[in-house]
C-alpha cells in the first residue's frame, strides 16, 4: 500500500479530487452505476446493459469476458476521446468526476491513457524517440521538461539501447512496450489496456505484463486490462472483474493455473490414423539455407524437415528462430538460397499472421463467397461453414469492423471453403479466447479426418498438445528436434504448457 500513498502524495501534480470529497476516502478511478450504452445507429440493441462496477485507485484490475461481450466498449466509454458515439444512460464517474465534467477539463486526455491490441496501429512516427515525444509535443510541453520526462520513462522501461531505432525494426514486444512508455510519458492516473498482449508471443507477453506490474506497484498508476486470458495475468492482478450476462462480478484472481503442467496427456499418436503412406512425405526440405539479404545473417542454416501426408505438424521455437520463414519456404513464397524443397500439395492455403491480408470484400458474406466461382463450393458447404464458425451474426458486417479473433475466424472459414489438401497456419490461435481455441482444435481434427495435411507455426504449446501429431522445434536457424508430441514435452523444463493453458483446452 506504500505505492498508493506515494501516488496520493503526488496527486497535486496530476489530478486533484473535488474538494467535497474527504481526502481520507480514496476516490475510485472508475465507477459505473447502472450504466448502459447503445451505439449510434443501433439503438435497438444495447451494447452494455446496467453495468455497475467500481475500479479502486491503485488497483490492477483484469476485465474478463468472452469475445464480443463488450469489454472494449466498456473501457472506451470512459475515455474522453475514444468514447464511441451512441446513447448512454446511468452514471459514470472517471477519477471522481462525472464523465461529462471530466471531458470538459482541458487536460482530460493527459489523465487517462489507452493502449490497444494491435501494436502497429498505434504507432504514429517513424522512430522510437519521436514516438515517445509525440504526446508531449502535442501538448506543447516545454523542451526541458519533455526531455526529462522522456529520459526517466525510457530509463524505467530500458528503452535507451533502442531509443534511436526506427519503429519498423522493433519486435512486436518492443513495439508494445514503446506504446506503453509513450503514453506513460504523459503521467496519467489511469491506464486502460485492451488485450495488450494478444498479438505477442508468450515471452514478450510476460515481459509486457511484468512492465505493467511495475507501473502499477512502483508508480501507483491504476491499471485496467481487458483480457480473455486472465490466467497469465493472475500473478500480477489485484482484482478480477468477470463480465457476463448478468453484469460484472468482481473477485480475487485465481492463481491455481500458474506454473508448468506436471503431466501432459496428448490425445495424439503418430502416425495419424487411417493415413500414413510411408516414405512419401507431402513436403520435404533438406539442408535449406535462407537469409533475407546477401549481407544479412542466416535465418535458416541447414534445416531438414519432412511433413507426412495427413499429419498435423507443429513448428515451435522462440522469436526470430525462423519459424515463419520456414513456413514461407514450404509455401513457396520465399525461395531458399540453398537446399532442396519439395512440396507435392495439390491445393494449399496459408493463413497469415495478419488475417487482414486475406480480407477484401465489404461484408463477411461476400468474403466467404469470393472464391466460390474459382473453387466451386456449394451453398450447402457455405452454410455449414457459417454454422461451424458461428458467423451468422457477422454476415452483414464489414470484415475489418469485426474484432481480431473474428477476422481470424472469417479468414480461416474462407480458406477452408476452398477444400485444400495442405493447410499452412501461422499463429492460428493469436487473439483467440479459450472457446475459440477449442473450436479450432475441433476444426483441425475434422480436417485431419478428411486427410488434409496441416502445418502450423505457433507459440501456443497447449494447442500443440491438443492437435499436433509431431512437433519440430527450431533453434538458431536449425532443427533442434522433430518428435511425436507425446515424447516431445516430457523432458522439457521451460518448453511446457502451463496448467491453465491445458485446462482451457480440456486437457487435464
Amino acid at each position: 500500500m506504500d505505492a498508493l500513498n506515494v501516488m496520493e502524495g503526488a496527486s497535486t501534480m496530476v489530478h486533484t479530487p473535488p474538494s467535497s470529497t474527504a481526502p481520507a476516502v480514496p476516490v475510485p478511478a472508475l465507477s459505473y452505476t447502472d450504466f448502459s450504452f447503445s451505439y449510434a445507429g443501433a439503438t435497438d440493441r444495447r451494447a452494455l446493459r446496467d453495468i455497475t462496477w467500481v475500479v479502486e485507485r491503485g488497483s490492477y484490475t483484469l476485465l474478463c469476458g468472452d469475445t464480443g461481450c463488450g469489454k472494449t466498449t466498456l473501457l472506451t466509454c470512459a475515455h474522453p476521446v475514444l468514447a464511441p458515439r451512441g446513447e448512454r444512460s446511468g452514471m459514470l464517474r472517471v477519477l471522481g468526476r462525472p464523465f461529462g465534467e471530466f471531458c470538459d477539463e482541458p487536460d482530460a486526455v493527459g489523465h487517462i491513457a489507452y493502449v490497444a491490441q494491435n501494436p502497429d496501429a498505434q504507432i504514429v512516427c517513424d522512430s522510437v524517440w519521436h514516438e515517445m515525444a509525440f504526446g508531449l509535443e502535442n501538448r506543447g510541453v516545454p523542451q526541458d521538461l519533455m526531455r526529462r520526462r522522456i529520459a526517466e520513462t525510457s530509463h524505467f522501461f530500458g528503452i535507451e539501447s533502442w531509443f534511436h531505432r526506427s519503429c519498423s525494426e522493433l519486435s512486436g514486444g518492443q513495439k508494445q512496450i514503446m506504446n506503453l512508455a509513450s503514453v506513460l510519458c504523459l503521467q496519467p492516473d489511469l491506464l486502460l489496456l485492451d488485450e495488450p498482449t494478444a498479438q505477442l508471443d508468450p515471452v514478450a507477453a510476460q515481459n509486457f505484463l511484468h512492465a505493467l506490474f511495475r507501473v502499477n506497484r512502483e508508480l501507483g498508476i491504476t491499471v485496467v486490462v481487458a483480457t480473455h486470458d486472465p490466467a497469465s495475468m493472475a500473478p500480477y492482478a489485484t482484482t478480477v472483474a468477470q463480465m457476463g450476462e448478468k453484469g460484472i462480478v468482481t473477485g480475487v484472481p485465481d492463481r491455481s493455473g500458474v506454473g508448468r503442467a506436471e503431466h501432459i496427456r496428448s490425445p495424439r499418436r503418430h502416425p495419424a490414423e487411417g493415413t500414413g503412406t510411408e516414405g512419401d512425405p507431402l513436403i520435404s526440405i533438406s539442408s535449406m539455407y535462407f537469409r533475407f539479404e546477401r549481407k544479412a545473417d542466416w535465418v535458416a542454416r541447414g534445416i531438414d524437415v519432412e511433413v507426412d501426408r495427413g499429419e498435423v505438424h507443429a513448428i515451435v521455437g522462440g522469436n526470430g528462430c525462423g519459424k515463419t520463414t520456414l513456413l514461407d519456404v514450404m509455401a513457396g513464397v520465399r525461395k531458399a538460397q540453398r537446399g532442396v524443397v519439395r512440396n507435392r500439395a495439390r491445393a494449399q492455403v496459408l493463413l497469415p499472421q495478419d488475417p487482414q491480408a486475406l480480407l477484401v470484400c465489404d461484408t463477411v458474406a461476400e468474403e466467404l463467397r469470393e472464391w466460390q466461382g474459382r473453387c466451386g463450393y456449394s451453398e450447402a458447404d457455405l452454410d455449414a461453414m457459417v454454422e461451424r464458425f458461428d458467423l451468422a451474426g457477422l454476415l452483414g458486417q464489414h470484415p475489418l469492423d469485426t474484432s481480431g479473433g473474428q477476422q481470424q475466424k472469417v479468414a480461416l472459414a474462407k480458406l477452408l471453403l476452398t477444400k485444400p489438401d495442405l493447410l499452412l497456419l501461422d499463429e492460428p490461435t493469436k487473439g483467440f479466447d479459450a472457446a475459440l481455441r477449442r473450436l479450432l482444435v475441433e476444426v483441425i481434427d475434422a480436417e485431419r479426418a478428411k486427410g488434409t495435411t496441416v502445418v502450423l507455426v505457433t507459440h501456443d504449446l497447449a494447442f500443440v498438445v491438443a492437435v499436433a501429431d509431431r512437433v519440430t522445434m527450431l533453434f538458431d536457424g536449425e532443427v533442434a528436434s522433430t518428435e511425436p508430441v507425446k515424447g516431445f514435452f516430457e523432458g522439457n523444463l521451460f518448453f511446457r504448457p502451463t496448467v491453465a493453458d491445458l485446462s482451457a483446452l480440456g486437457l487435464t
Partner: protein
Amino acid sequence: MSEEQHTGTDITHDSRSAFDLYHPAVPLVYFTIVIVLSMAAFQPVFCVLSLAGALIYGCYLRGWRAVVRSLRWSLPMVLIIALLNPFFSAFGTTQLFVLLGRTIYLESLVYGLCMGLMLTAMLQWFSNAAVVLTFEKILAIFGNVLPTIGLMLSMIMRFVPMLARRGREVEGVQQACTAIAPRSVRESTSLRVREASVLMGWSLEDSLRTADAMRARGWGGPNSRSVYQRYRFGSADLALTVSFALLGLVCAFLAWVACSQFAFYPTITPLIMWWGYVPYAGLLLLPLFIEFEEALRWMR
C-alpha cells in the same frame, strides 16, 4: 507476415561523418554553397575540380566501391551528352569530322563533355549530402521552424515503407494459396486488382486506428506544439558557417572572373595555370580537412 522480417534499408540513422559534431544547418549551408557553385561555374577547370572533390569526399563517406558503382551509369551519361551535343548545337571553328551529314566541331564536343561532368559532379554531391544530412537532421532543421511539417515527414517516413512491406505480404499470401491460383489471364488480372484492394482496405483501417491513437495522445489539442529535438547552434557552428560563406563568396567572385574571360565558342579560350582555382579546391576539400582533423584526434 513474420516477426523476423526486417527492412534492410535504414534511412534515418547510420551516418558517420565529422559533421555530426556540428549543428545540421552547417552541412546544409556547405552543400548548398557547393552545389550552387558547381552549377553556376560552367568552366572546364571548375567542373573538373568539383567532380574530383565530390569523388574524393564520396570515397571517404561512402567507400570507393559505392562511388564506382554510381559512376557505372553516370559515365555513359557523360559520353552520351558529349556526343549528342554536337548534333544539337553545331557551333565552333575546329572541324573534327562529318557524321551523318553533320559537321562535328571540337568546341561543341568539349561543351557537351563539360555539361556531362557538371551533371555527374552534382549527382555525386547530392549523394554525399544524403549521407551527411540524414533524415533526422533535416527533421531537426525544419521541425523547429514548422513542427507540423516535421511530424508529417516523420509519418510519411513510417507509412511508405510499411505500405511496401504490406504489399509484399499480401502478394505472398496470395501466391501461397495455390488453391486460388489463376487459371487464365483474366483471373490473374483480377488477382492483381484484388491485391491492391486488400492493401487499400488494410491501410484505411489502420489509418483510422492511428488517428484514434493520435487523438488519445492529445493531437489536435488547444496547445501549440513543441519539439523534442535539440540542436544548439554554438560558436563553433557559427565560425564554420561563416568561413564556409566567406570562402563561398570568394570562390563565387573568382568563378565569375574565370567564366567571364572564358568562352567555348567560337574557339575555346586557352586554359592557363591560375591561383584563382586554389580557393575553390580548398572549399571542395574542406570537409575532408575536418574529417582529417577528427581522425587525428583519435590517433593521439
